[in-house]
């Protein structure tokens, strides 16, 4: 049974496909940096979907934690240490702490009030990033963020090249996938899924619901921060725009279109579709977002379970 496995055949197949991307991506007319972006946004989307798909909690301000991770990596590099692991650890910690701060305020809320509170806090983080010029560089952002080498003690790998960075991010992606897969299928993940279906019933079974919601929010924020840190490395800078409400909306859209509500892999499907559409349709027309928006509307209207839901329906029919 796949749920009991730490590594599933689907994961191995996906990693093998992803490992081959640098070999053919340019021949397909795409840039290898797109692969880096897809992996980073996939980490972000999987973290986001721990809240949306597993716990049923919608955050419209999740870009804030992605941004906190990006800034924390840059600031740690400038002020603390140039060591990659220290910088990534600082980013995870900073985003996790931001998650604690916000989670304490919102975890007693549910439904629309929960969602609105996430927007409000997201806007606070975004405003701070713009206004705290001396720390964040304001709208100019943090520039000249380096890509420190990945030093494993016995060997160090230079990440200056996009292909090297791609394989490093792929390794991080693999670790995140395994960790979140296990978490979602653990007792903790089961309780989150129970809370999604009925907070009231979960509470009357003896579960302190708000503590589970808080823990889920902190983990989701911390992993989003890791994605943000990798993004800062990838673009060698950190800007406030990733914390803006429209950016937070994009991750919601990608996750829903992909099918995060019914599948662990839904967010990854959504990210691939979104970013490849951006590059392919975006090369043809500036209004590519219009077409993606139409896809989003079609999904909401006709198949709220998204592409993964559609695939599951086909699989069921095929098995009959």
């Amino acid at each position, binding site marked *: 049974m796949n749920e009991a496995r730490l590594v599933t055949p689907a994961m191995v197949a996906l990693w093998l496909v992803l490992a081959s991307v640098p070999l053919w991506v340019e021949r397909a007319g795409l840039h290898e940096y797109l692969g880096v972006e897809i992996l980073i946004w996939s980490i972000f989307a999987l973290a986001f979907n721990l809240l949306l798909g597993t716990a049923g909690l919608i955050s419209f301000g999740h870009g804030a934690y992605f941004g906190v991770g990006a800034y924390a990596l840059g600031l740690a590099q400038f002020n603390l240490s140039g060591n990659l692991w220290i910088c990534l650890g600082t980013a995870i910690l900073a985003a996790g702490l931001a998650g604690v701060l916000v989670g304490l305020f919102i975890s007693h809320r549910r439904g629309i009030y929960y969602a609105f509170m996430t927007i409000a806090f997201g806007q606070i983080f975004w405003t701070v990033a713009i206004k705290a010029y001396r720390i964040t560089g304001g709208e100019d952002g943090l520039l000249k963020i380096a890509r420190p080498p990945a030093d494993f003690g016995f060997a160090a790998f230079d990440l200056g090249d996009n292909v090297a960075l791609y394989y490093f991010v792929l390794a991080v992606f693999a670790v995140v996938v395994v960790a979140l897969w296990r978490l979602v299928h653990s*007792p903790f993940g089961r309780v989150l899924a129970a809370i999604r279906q009925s907070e009231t019933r979960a509470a009357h079974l*003896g579960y*302190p619901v708000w503590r589970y919601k808080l823990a889920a929010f902190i983990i989701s924020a911390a992993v989003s921060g890791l994605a943000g840190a990798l993004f800062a490395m990838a673009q060698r800078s950190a800007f406030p725009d990733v914390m803006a409400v429209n950016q937070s909306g994009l991750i919601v859209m990608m996750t829903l279109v992909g099918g995060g509500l019914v599948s662990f892999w839904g967010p990854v499907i959504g990210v691939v579709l979104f970013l490849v559409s951006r590059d392919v349709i975006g090369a043809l027309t500036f209004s590519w977002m219009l077409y993606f928006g139409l896809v989003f509307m079609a999904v909401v209207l006709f198949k709220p379970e998204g592409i993964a839901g559609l695939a599951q329906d086909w699989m069921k029919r095929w098995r009959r």
Partner: protein
Amino acid sequence: MASLIEAQGVHVRFGDRVVLEAIDLEVAEGELHGIMGPNGAGKTTFFNVLTGRVKPSRGRIRLGGEDLTGLAPHQIARKGVARSFQIMTLFDEFTARDNVMTALPAFRTRGFDMRHAVAGDRALAEEADALLAEVGLAHRSAVAAKQLPYGERRALEIAVALAQRPRVLCLDEPTSGLGSDGKQRLLELVRRIRARLTIVAIEHEMDFLFSLADRISVIHWGQVVARGTPRELQANEWVRRSNLGRFA
């Protein structure tokens, strides 16, 4: 018999509306205590106070001498109070087995375990299956709760409550929506489990309640207006004069 539940002067008001007014009610250990009364009398509100969903404006609730007043629902559940709901509340996407498993105290103590897979735990699955067998749902363990017929969902709700290993089981209109066959099956199920539990049941189905209950309290206008054994209630002047008398 010693009292397991003691409600003393429980008073609840929502805004300017008094819903419960100085309710005094005792339930003895091992007793099946029925609560009856017309719609809007305050029966479910009393359950909500007992299980922590509503905090009383005044008064106290004790379980085995321990004060439960003002505790959150999860704290009261952990002290051994399980409940069913008037509007059935299950984890609809979970299978029957997963619904029961999630309610087991052994599962609850591992609630923050993020390192082990649930699917690999046979002991929990077997414990859940045994409870499903007890309520006649052994053959339905792998079926999603939302796909079960209404009567089986009611039985599953009781299995979920039993899985909590409660000291007190609160049933809020358990026969609601059931046909005569379903009621008969539920009656037999409650008869089987009552020997090892204290049960408090709100019920409109008077045949059901009068054939099972050791004692019954009648709540009306937010007050206990009559109480006693089914036989005593049948002789109670107030009950005879009221609309409820036609059932008693």
